[in-house]
């Protein structure tokens, strides 16, 4: 009992491991490595931190971005924030920073750079992506009790988050959002609805879209707008085609 208890304490304290077994040696070595890694992660944090607030502030993030050679509006930075579970937009606390970088196993800028492209693959898996997508919305809620985001920011966010996967849908929806006057903000329900729309509705024919289902109203209106545009387009192009054929 005693021995085991000392051994356990030995594990916790890697400096007191003179007579330990190889397994212990390995463990202590790995835990030593972990400690080292944590130190390096903390060290990295120190190089971006804003001394007065104790967090990485927007300036620090910009510095970080240029170090890993991605744009600060790049989706990967948002993914990094997702991995860190960062609460406040534009700021990383030490805890978040440790959580994220430990999970990515990145303790240097070089490793982080590599990890980011790995992260992109991880996020693209369906359950992760859903979580990431809803995180992206929540991340943009900066005020206390804020529940919705203005149209302009939503358009940018859509392009960042969904642009690579659903380019045509996003472009067309953004075009709609900018022409309509009914909505000034988008809420979480509508935001999640659009992802479902991208995944389920045939685009651009929209033939399987049924407005009687529980789609958010904004999507009903968007589809109506699309169909109107399409029929207008058809009417306009039809005579031309006839003219070519004659």
């Amino acid at each position, binding site marked *: 009992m005693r021995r085991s208890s000392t051994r356990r304490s030995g594990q916790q304290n890697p400096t007191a491991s003179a007579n330990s077994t190889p397994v212990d040696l390995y463990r202590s070595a790995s835990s030593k490595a972990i400690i080292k890694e944590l130190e390096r992660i903390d060290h990295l944090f120190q190089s971006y931190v804003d001394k007065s607030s104790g967090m990485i502030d927007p300036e620090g993030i910009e510095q970080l971005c240029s170090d890993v050679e991605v744009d600060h509006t790049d989706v990967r930075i948002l993914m990094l924030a997702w991995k860190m579970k960062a609460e406040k937009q534009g700021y990383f606390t030490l805890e978040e920073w440790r959580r994220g970088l430990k999970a990515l196993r990145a303790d240097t800028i070089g490793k982080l750079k590599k990890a980011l492209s790995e992260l992109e693959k991880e996020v693209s898996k369906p359950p992760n992506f859903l979580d990431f997508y809803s995180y992206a919305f929540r991340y943009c809620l900066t005020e206390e009790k804020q*529940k*919705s985001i203005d149209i302009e920011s939503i358009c940018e966010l859509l392009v960042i988050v969904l642009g690579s996967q659903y380019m045509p849908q996003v472009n067309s929806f953004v075009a709609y959002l900018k022409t309509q006057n009914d909505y000034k903000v988008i*809420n979480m*329900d*509508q935001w*999640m*609805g659009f992802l*479902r729309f991208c995944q389920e509705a045939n685009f651009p024919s929209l033939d399987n879209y049924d*407005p*009687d*289902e*529980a789609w*958010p*109203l904004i999507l*009903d209106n968007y589809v109506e707008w699309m169909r109107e545009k399409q029929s207008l387009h058809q009417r306009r192009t039809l005579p031309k085609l006839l003219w070519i054929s004659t």
Partner: protein
Amino acid sequence: MRDKHDEFFLREFVKRWTNQKVASRWFSRFFYYLDRYHIIRWSLPSLKDVCLTNFRDLAYIKVSSKVRDAIISLIDLEREGEQIDRTLLKSVLDILVEIGMGKMKCYEDDFEVHMLEDTVAYYSQKASNWILEDSCPDYMAKAEECLKQEKERVSHYLQSSSEQKLMKKVEHELLFVYESQVLEKEHSGCHALLTDNKVEDLSRMYRLFCRTPRGLDTIIQIFKKHVTAEGVALVKQAEVAASDKKVFVRRVIELHYKYLTYVTDCFMHHSLFHKALKETFEVVCKGIARSSSAELLASFCDSIVKKSRSCEELSDEAIEEILEKVVKLLAYASDEDLFAEFYRKKLANRLLFDKSDNEDRVRSVLTKLKRQFGGWFTRKMERMVTDLTLARENQASFESYLNSNPHVSPGFDLTVTVLSTGFWQINKSIDLNLPAEMVKCVDVFKEFYQMKNKHRKLTWIHSSGTCIINGNFEPKTTELMVTTYQASVLLLFNASDSLSYSEIRTQLNLSDDEVVRLLHSLSCAKYKVLNKEPNTKTIGPNDYFEFNSKFTDRMRRIKIPLPHVDEKKKVIKDVDKERQYAIDASIVRIMKRRKVLDHQQLVMECVEQLSRSFKPDFKGIKKRIEHLINMDYLERDKDKPNIFRYLA
């Protein structure tokens, strides 16, 4: 026997048959013993049967076709209207049945089939003649007569089993084949009958064509087209002559009533006709722009109630009848709540500004409305009437209070109508700076009211107030009946002779719209109590006004009207808001009970709950669901986006 023909042949046939019967009966008597014992033992056919078979095989077979032809030709004679011996036919046909020996085969094969064939031929020829020569009502009358006769024929001498087959053939020939031709005859078809109000013919038409498989469809189509055309014509007329709306409403009501009686009387309440009528009037009511149909009906009801007061020409029953019709019509517009709101507005005006109204009368009309629409409809209105009674009592006690306390005189006669909030559609008053005289009397009343009711808060609605003020014009003193706002403007001129627009505005503390409206009524309308500089027809922000001391009118007391702001939009807005709350409440009620519910079901239940006051559109419901999600009353199921959960 072979030389005889037709009727005589048949007589002979019957006679022979009777002889045969007699013979067979005698045989049975003679060989009674054999018949009883020998035949049964050897299981031979009975003597009676043998007689019958012999008669059939030896005699009947040879003459059967002749018998049949004779019968049919007799029937044809009767169809042409001649008298024939029905008993003879009856007995011949009975023989046929009897020869069948318990089966109808003989009757059916030897006679019925041929008779039906003949009938078809007969009527198809007749119908083809009639359809060319006769008008639709005549044709129908003839057809009905024929059907009646055929039915009688069956009961007189045919077997009852033939009835269905025969009638079916005749109906097919007379009605089905020429159905569309008859109904769509140019100058006498269904359309013409509707135009000429031929109630009897229409009933006949229904009676006839409800027998054919799809006969009613065509009638319904025509009926629908006809009524829609009339309704749309009315709407168009109303658009051209926009002035006479009451006449229009009256006409629409009459139109509806007329066709409703058609449906109930001529078409026997057939559900398809009710549906057709409903659809048609929905179209007509939509033709009148949304909201205005409710408004039109509301002002129509209002005018009826008013009229019944002023000249007593409408009895209670008449009002009830009209209200009933209005209710029916309103069901098509599905805007009952909008109607209620407009009606309430009218009622408020009547109660507040038109004191001549008799309270009993108002109450009796309300009871009628309640009976028609239900309690929700009149709840607020009843409170309004009660409020007014209370206000009158309050006023009386205020007056006695003034009498007993002479030192608190308000300076002039003051009547205050204290109403409860929430039941009246009254615009919130903007903070008007009252003239000093009025401030004083307001204070006096406040003091009085606080004494009686400590914890109630009084809000003064000056926008609904009226005043009578004396205008000391040079020619003579004239009493001016004005609104409180107008009076406030005029009283400003007690202090100074000339005021600029902006001075008036700041002194009154009113919005620009309001000030322009007031000044226009006082300086540019019929009575120019104020002079305006420059003297134009519109009010500008740089204008100057001064008291027109030269003003005079031949009347001693004049009423200076203030044009009404169009409150239609406001009413519609209010109703829309009410509807949103109603939808919210309904959704929450449903979800509270069900906890988890599919989107479609939720929408359906919601529509059902609200249908008695209005028809909510799907988009509206969706919007409210989203609103409730936002307010954290509901959430969307994470895996099945069509399902909502109630969050307690």
